[in-house]
């Protein structure tokens, strides 16, 4: 088979595509928004002591706790929105190759501890060279395999009910945690603010604000952990499978169809978000890491329509 020019691995030097996770820029905006609003509110009573439900503390401690709770809750919600609620524009595509690896959702301790961060099930496919244009067009980054040919990889995500269940549960839990955390943060920060710090009053103030924010944020995360685990347990779903029900594994020859987009969570690589149809064609006799030459030579007939790159 005659292959087209092989895409360059790594950064494509493009300036048009996203190459960082959308969560990061959202956090930066949240800091600006919440920081401005809460500081403006604080201007109206900057030296006052505010009391709510019998808890008294300087206004600055209250706004720090509220800011910590709000920002953390918004981050949890943002993960859920980006993972499960948003419907970004995608390009309908079809490709085929050999599965290099299967990355399950909740594959690490971090995903269990912070369930809202878990990513959907993913397969990494070393694609036939006829599909390299799908890997390269519109990409800020090209993922490649560790074989001698550094063969390009196309990632495919399978929407996971467990990930979305955990995201919804985490968001609800984080909301509860935000309310509780605000009061606990104020209690902790207020205790520091009330200390007689003498010439180090500025240090006590900074610490009071910091502790109020951190305590509130930790309470939100604890709520997200509890809610996320409940949501995950309540959801059904299994590992990624082909349309005939076969569970996918390394060395499977597959054809995948779905929507392609440039993913900030994958350094700006093109990925399927999500794979909607998977055809299993058999298994490779070679060993991982696979080269594109394997499916080029052994998967002559895939399930995609004929493409003219």
């Amino acid at each position: 088979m005659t292959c087209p020019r092989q895409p360059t691995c790594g950064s494509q030097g493009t300036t048009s595509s996203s190459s960082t996770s959308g969560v990061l820029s959202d956090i930066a905006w949240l800091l600006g928004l919440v920081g401005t609003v809460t500081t403006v509110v604080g201007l109206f009573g900057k030296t006052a002591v505010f009391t709510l439900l019998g808890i008294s503390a300087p206004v600055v401690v209250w706004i720090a706790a509220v800011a910590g709770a709000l920002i953390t809750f918004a981050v949890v919600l943002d993960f859920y929105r980006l993972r499960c609620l948003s419907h970004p524009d995608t390009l309908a595509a079809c490709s085929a190759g050999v599965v290099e690896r299967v990355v399950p959702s909740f594959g690490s301790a971090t995903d269990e501890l912070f369930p809202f961060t878990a990513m959907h099930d993913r397969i990494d496919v070393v694609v036939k060279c006829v599909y390299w244009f799908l890997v390269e067009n519109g990409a800020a980054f090209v993922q490649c395999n560790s074989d001698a040919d550094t063969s390009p990889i196309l990632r495919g995500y399978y929407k996971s009910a467990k990930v979305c269940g955990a995201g919804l549960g985490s968001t609800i839990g984080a909301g509860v945690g935000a309310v509780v955390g605000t009061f606990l943060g104020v209690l902790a920060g207020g205790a520091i603010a009330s200390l007689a710090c003498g010439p180090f009053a500025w240090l006590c103030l900074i610490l009071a604000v910091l502790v109020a924010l951190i305590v509130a944020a930790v309470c939100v995360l604890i709520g997200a952990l509890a809610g996320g685990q409940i949501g995950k347990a309540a959801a059904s779903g299994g590992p990624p499978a082909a349309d005939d029900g076969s569970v996918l594994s390394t060395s499977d020859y597959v054809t995948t169809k779905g929507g392609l987009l440039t993913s900030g969570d994958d350094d700006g690589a093109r990925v399927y978000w999500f794979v909607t149809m998977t055809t299993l064609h058999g298994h490779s006799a070679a060993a991982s890491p696979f080269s594109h030459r394997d499916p080029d030579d052994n998967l002559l007939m895939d399930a995609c329509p004929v493409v003219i790159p």
Partner: protein
Amino acid sequence: MLPILTIWHRSLCAVTGAIAGGFAGMLFGFAQLQQPALTPTDAVKVGILLGLVAWVFILMVEALWLHYGAAVVWPSLVTSLLSAILTVVVANAVAVPVLSVWIGLLFGTLVGALLCRLCGERVDPRGVRT
């Protein structure tokens, strides 16, 4: 699209600096509501404290939640400290609490983008960023 939003989408260094600077600016802005201006020496000390806390926050988000791993540990420490110190020193001089968070976002973005350009981003043959 605003240039600052574009760079946050394209550069991990720039958005890391923005988060560190924004975090430090927001907290320092709260403290400024009640505390008159600090001496430059005290402002640097507060910047270091807030920079370290911002670094822990960034590590949690980038290394753990977004799975960037250990590669971001030391670069983000340098970015966080420089962004936070610069933010607190400038915000202390400007002395307008409402502006502090935006001073942090702006200076953090500049510090991050500059460090990224100075140090360069390394990519191994498989296309994995290190």
